[in-house]
Structure formats: C-alpha cells, structure tokens
C-alpha cells in the first residue's frame, strides 16, 4: 500500500492492468462511503463505486495530472451518482427492493457521509485518506508531499466544516 497513486497509474499504462487493484484497495472504502452519502444506501453506493473504478480504469490514459487522481476519481464518482439518481427516478421499483436489502444490513451513517460529500475536494480527500483509507497523518503527508503540520491543520478545518454541515442538517431535521 506504500506505492503512490502515480506509481500504480504508470504501471497500469505500462501494460500491468492488475496494478489497478492497488488503487481500488486504497479508495474503495472512501469512495463507497462518499457515494453512500450521495445515494442514501449501501447497495447503490457499491454499485456506483464499481462503475466509477471501471470508468477510471479506461480513462487512465487521459488523466493529465496523475497526482490529482483522487479528486479526478471523485469527480467521476459525482457524475456516476448523478446518473444513478436520474435512473432511480425512472425506476423506483427496483430501488425499493435495493433499499429493503440495504435495510437488513447494519446502518451506515449516511448523514456523515453526505456531509463528507459536501466538503471541498482537498478536505474530503484528507478525511477519506485518514479514516476510510486508514492512513496516518505522516503517511498522508508523505504521499501528498506536504508537512505533517499542514495535514493536521487542514484536518482541523475539515472537522470544523463537517461539524458545521452536520449541525445544519440537524437544524433542518428539527
């Protein structure tokens, strides 16, 4: 897991498609959580996450800034989620079934995931890496090539933003 995103991308483009697994492992939890926030259920989120990875795989050669893989990936995820929501509107029945299936599983914190989805790109990336990617601040600092102090400062701001949108959500619910 120590390899950079750029490394995996280069390997894929050099004819080692299996190296894409590294990127899937790194982002699957965060991406799924992010999509769950947008789509409101686990099954749809996983479905959308798979679609996102597939699109990313076939679009790899077009990615110019390889260091921005994460935000590019979430950009794709955003479009996939939008498409899914449009399709859900058309196909309510199928979705109701999925919802039921999802309800049987332990509930995810969709509010939190939604709030993550609303974060600016750079903050969202940090939160996802730190928690859903299970990486320490030092690791993140190394990967993004910034000082650890900057990572914690930005995390502080990301927490503040998260808390803000979570409390706004509560307000609305009241």
């Amino acid at each position, binding site marked *: 897991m120590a390899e950079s995103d750029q490394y995996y991308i280069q390997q894929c483009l050099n004819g080692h*498609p299996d190296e894409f697994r590294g990127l899937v492992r790194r982002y699957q*939890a965060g991406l*799924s959580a992010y999509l769950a926030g947008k789509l409101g259920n686990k099954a749809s989120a996983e479905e959308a996450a798979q679609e996102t990875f597939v699109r990313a*795989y076939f679009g790899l*050669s077009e990615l110019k800034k390889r260091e921005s893989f994460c935000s590019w990936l979430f950009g794709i995820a955003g479009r996939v989620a939008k498409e899914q929501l449009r399709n859900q509107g058309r196909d309510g029945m199928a979705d109701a079934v999925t919802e039921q299936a999802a309800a049987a599983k332990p509930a995810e*914190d969709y509010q939190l995931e939604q709030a993550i989805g609303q974060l600016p790109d750079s903050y969202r990336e940090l939160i996802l890496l730190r928690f859903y990617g299970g990486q320490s601040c030092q690791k993140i600092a190394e990967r993004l090539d910034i000082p650890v102090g900057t990572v914690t*400062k930005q995390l*502080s701001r990301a927490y503040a933003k998260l808390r803000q949108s979570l409390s706004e959500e509560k307000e609305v619910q009241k």
Partner: protein
Amino acid sequence: MNCTECIEKLAELLESLLSESQRQIVQEHLKDCRQCQAEWQKLKELSERLTSDSQTWQQTNLEDAVFNRIIVKQNEKLKQADRVNRHFRIWRRIMNSRVTKYAAAAVIIIAVLLSVSIFHQSVPTVSAAQQVLQDAIEAVSDVWSVHMKARMRTRPSDNFSNIGLNYDFVEIEMWKRTDENGVVQWRVEKPGRVLVMDGQNTTMLIRPNHGVLMEKPLPLGCFDSWSGRLLNVHDLLDNELKNAKNNPDRELFLRHENINGQDKIILEVDVAANVPEGDYLRNSFITNSDHLKVYQFDANTKLLEGLQVYVHTEDKDILIFEITDIEYNSEIENGIFALDLPENMNWYGQPQKLSDNEKYEKMTPKEAATAFFQACAEENWEEVLKFKTSSQIDERTKAYLGGLEIISIGEPFQSEGYARNGLGWFVPYEIRLRPVERNAQLSKANSADRFVITGWYDNKMQVQDEVKWSNEPEILPDNDTYVKMSPDEVVRAYYDALSRLDWDEMRKFMPTDDVEKMQHQCEEAAKYNIDIQKNLPTIEVIKTFWSAEHSSYFVTYREFRVKKFNLAIRKDNSANRFVVDGGL
C-alpha cells in the same frame, strides 16, 4: 495558552502528534476551560463517528467485482477494436503492394491518425493482449498431455519447418505427455517423417529406411521441427508474451469472435522475416517469411484452441499452417511413443575424423562439392561416403548419381536462413546424370484408334508406373494426324511436348490426371528454385517391339537428364569437414 492556540492544537492531540510538553500544556488548558473542553469532546465524538462509519466500509471489497466489470467492458471494446483492426489489415495489404505503397501513403497517414484517437479512448491493446496471453499461460499450467492435429504446406518427407507457398497441405499429428514422475515423451509425425522421443532416446525416421538415433532426450524443436515446438504450449505462449513485452512496436491485434455460439478471443501477431528480402531461403521456412500468426483462445477456459499462420506475399496472405484440433489431458497410448523401424535402416550420424581428415578440412566449399560429384562420377562410394553423414550409400542414390558427368560447378553463396555459424554454404551445380534405359508401353485399343501411353517399365521390364485411363482417349479434331503416328513417334512427341511444358499436347498421349500431377510437380519444383527447363529429360529411341505377353507395343529408349540446382553443404561438425546436407 489561549483558546485559539488550544483549539488549533486539538487535531494534533487527537492524532497523538504533540510532544510530551505540548500535550501537558494543552491538557492543562482543557482542565480549566469549559469551552475548549466542549470543543474537544465534540471533536472526539466526530472522530469516533468517522472511525465507526469507516469501519463498516473497510470490509467492502470491490476488487474482484471491479475487475470482472473491466473484463466485460474490455471485451466490448475489443469488438470495437476489431473494426480498427480490419482497417489495419487493409493498410497492411496496401503497404505490402509496391505499386500502391507511395500513392496510398497520404491516405494511410490520415487513417492512422483516426485509429490512434480510437485506441486512445481505451486501455492500449498491447496490455489487453498481454493479459490474454497471461490467462492462456495459466490455463495450461496443469496440462500433462497434448494431442495436436495440424496441416502445413510442406513436403511429406522434408523436415518439420520447411514450407512452400504452392505446396499442397500435408497432415501433421503430434503428441506430448508428461507422466507422474515428470518424464516427458513426444512424437511428431507426417507421412514421410517421424520424430519420437520416448523419454530416453530421440529417433528420427525418414521413410522408408533412413534415420538418426540420438541416445539422449532431445527437446522439441530438434531436427528442425518448427511444428513440434507447438506442443510446448506453455513455452509457446510465454515466448509470445515476452516478445510482446520486449517489443512494444510489435503488431498485436485482439478481437472477439462468436464461433458456433461460443465466445472466442482471437490474437493476431505479425512477425517480420528473419532473413532479408531476396535471400535464397526467403519463404522456405515460416521464420524466413513475413508472417501473421492467428491464435484462437476460448474466452471462458482461456485455453489455446487453434493457430493459423499466413505468409504475406506481395498481393495476398497465404495460409501455410493450421492447427486443426487440440486435445488436452487425454490418455495417450504407450505405443505412440515407440517407433517401429524397418530392418534395413540406414543411420545418419555425426561425421567422424578420417585418417586423412586434414585433406578434407582444407577444402573450400567449391572444392568439396566438386570432389563429391567427382566421386559419384567414378562410382567411388567409399569416397562419396566421406561427404555424407549416413552409414551407407543406398542403391537408389547409387543408381541416381553413379556415373554422372559434371557440367559446371558455380560460385558458392550463403543464406542467413542456412547460416550454421557461417559454415553452411550453397554450391550451384549442373550435372548430366547417367542415361537411364526405360520402356514405354503403348496401346491403340481405344475408340480414337491412336497410340497412347499405358505404362512405364524399367530396363528389366519391371513396372515402374501404371497408367490408368479412366476415360477413353478422346477423338481429337485433328485425330487423323495422331492415328498415323507410330509408337516411337508418340513417345518422342510426348517428350517433346514435355520439354516445352505443353500440357495440352501431353494430354493427347497421357491421361489428364497424370499430366496435371506432373504439371503440379513442375510448378512446385519451380517454387523451390529448380530450373525446370534445364531438368527436363531428353530421349533417344532404341527400338520398338511387340510383347505378346502384354498384348502391347513397347518403345525402348534412353533418357538423358541434366540437373541444375544448389548443393547444401555444411562444416559445423567436430570433424571440421564439409558434408552434403541437401539439394540433390
């Protein structure tokens, strides 16, 4: 420490990134400040909430699902790529044609630009091709037996690499088995030649009775067996994969095809000839030709199911080799790996040092060829044997070469296809063979009432070739001219027509089937760089007689034959002298 400073440090406190002294300062402040204390609590709650939510997602494993989807989508893209592939094939044809090469250049450049943009949208085909090969390699990892049937445009008794663009297809059958102790056995066979490795010895039989015995297990590919190598399916594919990785420019095309309702992956590999254009052996072996290999894999099992090889020529691609059937892991009878040999075997071996070896070591290619033909002329078979790798000179060779007359020996030349470490040479020669006395059988018992040839006999009146007229000789428009001809005039007219390669005229004396067979042989020989006109016989009639026993006329005649060809000789042996390898 004030509140702003404290709050800024909370994230670091959470991550345990503060030094001991800083941690104490922050915690001191937290004890005294309710507001900051509340902030710390909220932060910890959020962190726990994030950790708890992320843990539910940590169990998510999308890897396999994602890769399954990638493969499905890749397959769809491969189908699209097929369209591009067809364009490529057309370009290749255009490029291969000298006439259109330059005129088409502008069109091709535009087409290439278009195709690049199509490919750009997908993962490069090379990596997809490599994946297909990788899968196919894994699919044969537990294969312990292979039984293959194939056909190749080759000569029935020549080696398993030789090809000719105009040759007929010859059936090839091959078996390989690895037993539970890891002992490998194999057999490669075509009508005139068999190679068998029984686990200990390797034997080559060139029918009817020539052979080589090596008292060790040789690998597939020995004795020039290009087709034999295919039995090592794993190595075959592994080499292809290595080549694909090492030569990114190598042309590889992938597509899906639905064959009998089953999904098949087709991989095409274009390979350039390993000898230059104009080389003497160009297109005499697959590796000496620009060729296209078309592999077929089953999309589900990933197993190799077929291979076709096309040789590119100026105007078309010619199918030269094809695997018609492959069976994996089928039981193979033990008898397959045992070879029944005739009693009168004539064994080839490595040339041994002679008592007067030095004399032969000094010979140039031209001198060696001359000495060889001279010995044949003198029928000094002991001397001839010094230029051969066989244990004896058989009667057929003696009858053919004995008493020959050397007309000329030309300047030796080399071919990259017959390098033999720089020690392989071709020596052009022209020899007059000793005249052969033969008898032609003729009969007039047909509705056209003219003499036609009904058989060929040797000088001892033994049948050499029976001639079967399945249809009666037809009544010709100028039948009268032929009705008037005597038996010896018919034989002369026949040979005269042959010397002009006038097949229509020959059909007046011989059945159509036989003439067509001869025409075909001549065309094949021409493809083998044999100067046909030079090699056709001339005759001298001796007498005509009636045989009551055969109820036929016979014409006894002498056949004179000149042979003009290239003798292949090589010196890459421990005795360091030239031996004749072929070209007789």
